[in-house]
């Protein structure tokens, strides 16, 4: 099992009242799954992805990742863990404007202290694979949205994560670009990468092996 969330509660306090963002949430993810999270806007999809990605904490519950208790970890080991195993893809791509395509893809490797020669090889692989060798010296602002998202995915993949978290990866793209990205995800999944994506689109969700539905921070079992 890759990860397991048990009775997760996450809330914010507003005007003395607790507003639950995640409410008694349970989820098990096996290696090799391709999960789509669906639900209306504000239902907690992004929040859940952030919690799984260890970017955000929660108040109650247990979270085991590769059988290690994330909820009991210090910041340092947690960040080591996600650096090692998780890659992120965002709706707004979140590329670094000041860096070229090549440098953007290279960045996660820098933070993992990968050797220079190995970095070169890994980045070259990615550029090849996504057919963006010709664009490697361009800046993000010089690319189309679809191309930017390709770079975003390449960056997420370069460090060979076990798990890709994608928050509405095609939200800003047209349908043709969306299809390309989704097919890419399906291929990756076939190669063994676990993928969790949040999406509003039924057709995108259909690329997944399993869909879970959220409503007000809870699993909406009626739809599953």
């Amino acid at each position, binding site marked *: 099992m890759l990860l397991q969330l048990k009775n997760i509660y996450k809330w914010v306090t507003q005007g003395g009242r607790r507003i639950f963002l995640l409410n008694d949430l349970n989820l098990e993810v096996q290696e090799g799954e391709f999960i789509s999270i669906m639900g209306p806007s504000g239902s907690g999809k992004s929040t859940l992805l952030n919690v799984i990605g260890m970017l955000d904490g929660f108040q109650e519950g247990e979270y085991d990742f590769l059988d290690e208790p994330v909820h009991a970890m210090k910041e340092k080991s947690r960040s080591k863990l996600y650096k090692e195993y998780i890659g992120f893809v965002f709706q707004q791509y*979140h590329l670094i404007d000041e860096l070229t395509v090549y440098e953007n893809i290279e960045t996660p490797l820098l933070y993992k202290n990968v050797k220079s020669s190995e970095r070169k090889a890994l980045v070259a692989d990615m550029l090849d694979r996504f057919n963006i060798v010709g664009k490697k010296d361009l800046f993000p602002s010089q690319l189309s949205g679809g191309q930017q998202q390709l770079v975003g995915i390449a960056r997420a993949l370069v460090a060979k994560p076990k798990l890709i978290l994608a928050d509405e990866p095609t939200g800003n793209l047209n349908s043709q670009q969306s299809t390309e990205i989704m097919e890419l995800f399906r291929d990756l999944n076939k190669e063994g990468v676990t993928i969790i994506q949040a999406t509003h689109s039924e057709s995108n969700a259909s690329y997944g092996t399993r869909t879970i539905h959220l409503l007000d921070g809870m699993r909406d079992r009626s739809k599953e």
Partner: protein
Amino acid sequence: MFKNHIKIAWRNLRSDPKFSVLNILGLSVGLAITLLLFLFISHERSFDTMYAQKENIQRVLLFTDGDQGEETWTNAPAALAPAIVADIPEVKKASRMYRHNFGGNAFVKAGDEQFIEKDLYWADAELFQIFNVPFLRGNGQKALDKPNAVALSQSRALQYFGTIDIIGKTLNIDNGLELEVTGVYEDLPSNSTLDAAMVGSFKTLNFYKNPSWSNSSFETYIYTVDNTNIDEVVSKIQTTLNKNVVKEDQWYSFGLQPLEEVHLYSGGYLDSYSKRDGDINEVRNLTLLAFLILIIACINYMNLTTARSQKRTKDVGISKTLGASTQSLILRFYTETFLITGIAIALGIVLTIVALPFFNDITSRTIVVAEVLSPTFLFLLLGVWIITTLVAGSYPALHLSKFSPKEIMNPSPARKGAAKLVRKGLVVVQFAASVILIVSVAVMYKQMTFMQTKDLGFNPNQVLAINATVALENKSEDALLNKFKNNPIVQSVSLAQGYPGLGVSGRTLRKNDQDESGTNLQTNHSDAAIVDVLNLKLLAGQPLPRVKQRSDTIVEVLLNKKAVAYLGLSPEEAIGKKINAQLGSNAYIRGVVDDFNFTSLRAPIGAYAFHNRPIGEYKNYLLVRFRESDLSTTLSTFEADFKEIIPGGAFDYSFLDKNTEKLYEAEQRTAQIGLIFSILAIFVACLGLFGLAAFTAEQRDKEIGIRKVLGASVFGITKLLSTDFIKLVGIALIIAFPLAYYVMNNWLQEFAYRISIGWEPFIFTGLCALFVALLTVSLQSIKAALRNPIGALRKE
């Protein structure tokens, strides 16, 4: 429209209080410093401008060959003034001035009360005809016509008599002369070189009755008719000199210096009487400093404003799409700058006024609040306001207004890069300026410390110089000497004409009769104990003999090594030799002492002699070397001893080490002003850096978030944000160091005894700058790095 601009500007100011405070604070501190310096500079430049006939007044200069080339004295012989008025038609009037006792204090008795007067001059009646000093009582034109007349400043009149209606009252000077008050004049303003609090008539003095061509102790001002050719007058003075003095005795020649140059352009001239000496170099340095600080403050403003205005680029872009013209946008930014600089100036004025007493204290000037608020100065301020607005506002105004709306809202990387480059350049300039300041101050302090700790060849610590003029008047100097010898605190005591740091008599030392030019020899009439009192090192022979009869025609001389070297002798060879030094025909070398710094360390050591020739010079000072003990009890036992021998005599003393320190007052002052201002400059520079770092962190918020998600550590992010700035500081250091080295190397040339600059000031400054910059920047960076990245990424 304009009102609208002001309204928007005001809102912007309030919407971002942190930036506004940093901005206004930086600018107002910078402005306050600049204002203070401008005040000081304009005070210095205003010297002697209050005299109506200033364009017709010249001071006589005397040029003579010292040991190290030309020396310029501001004194002339007493015989010169009457001779040139008689001979040269252009010279309408001349007045000699002599500071009492060659600069010593006078004891003044007014009624039953005794005072120590530090500012008594003697001058010809023409003094107040040349310098139109307003008289409150009596007639200034005639006040000094007769012997035994004296004119007082208003404040002295009030101090001595409690009133200014004192014409005809009498004053007693040094328990001897009775002077009659003939006039009371308005206090001389603090920017008058003439600083007399009391002026006695020159006719009272022996110098008047027998004016000599050899004793050059009289500051001489002349009044020339309009359109005089000064060069011609100078050559006519030479003609008069040739008429009166045979060539062999002309150890000098003369020149003239216009009054307007007297205050600032007399650096290096010897024997000026006025205590208000200025220095054009100091004025130049401080002007430079003022501009540097103003620039730093303006850059600060530009940096912070452009940084902040980037946040408002969208707003500008929208205004443009809505049809706002470039001009109106430029006007809008200038209005905002004008408002902020206005507030900063107002605050700056307040700071200036608050800091003024302190500033006066360290500059020993008396600049008053009225000068800050005087119309001319306020006018100047308006100029500063407009210039600062134009300079400080130029970048934001032009930078943002010029571009098309699309480009502002979605800037191309190239343009963003250019904007960044400009900002970085500004930070570099700002830091380089601060670094130059700090290095300069560090070098100054190094030199000061060197001067204070250098082995002077004598020991000025634990030595008191007591003014013994009164004792001389009633021939009780031996009694005084014995009294002090018996005091257990006293180690040794000597009577001497002067002490190191105080001018003594200049004579000429010749190798033989063929040696026409000779060398300048400072001669000090003193006694046997002087070697002990000053801790001089006797290299050969004996100190002066203990007993000396007045009738004895033999003169013993103690030379310094330099003098013996001039004679071409070793110390041992010199002993017993006869010497040709205008000390009579029977002068013999009795001993040789090692060289010691008898003037400031600015000048190299020259030839010096102690002698016991009884005629000529008085031994005005009792020099007392005392043992370590409680200072106040020491002083009071000394005073009691003194009063016992001379009842009613005023006890006027100074410490030799303090006097030695006083030689470097101007440098101390510049160093002190420099220190304070460079601290403030670096503070202002740091405000700028702080603002910029905050801005950068904010601007790179998203990037920081992404990097954290990609695995960057807090340290990594801090490093990322800080290295850029540290690099800038590094560049600033590289630019500033050679400049600072050049400037300070020049400054050090003024000193014959100087430090080598060495590397410490640079290491010190470099570390300081880096430390301060790192502190400023990393505070911001760490804060940014610690934030949860989700917040940053959710924005948009």
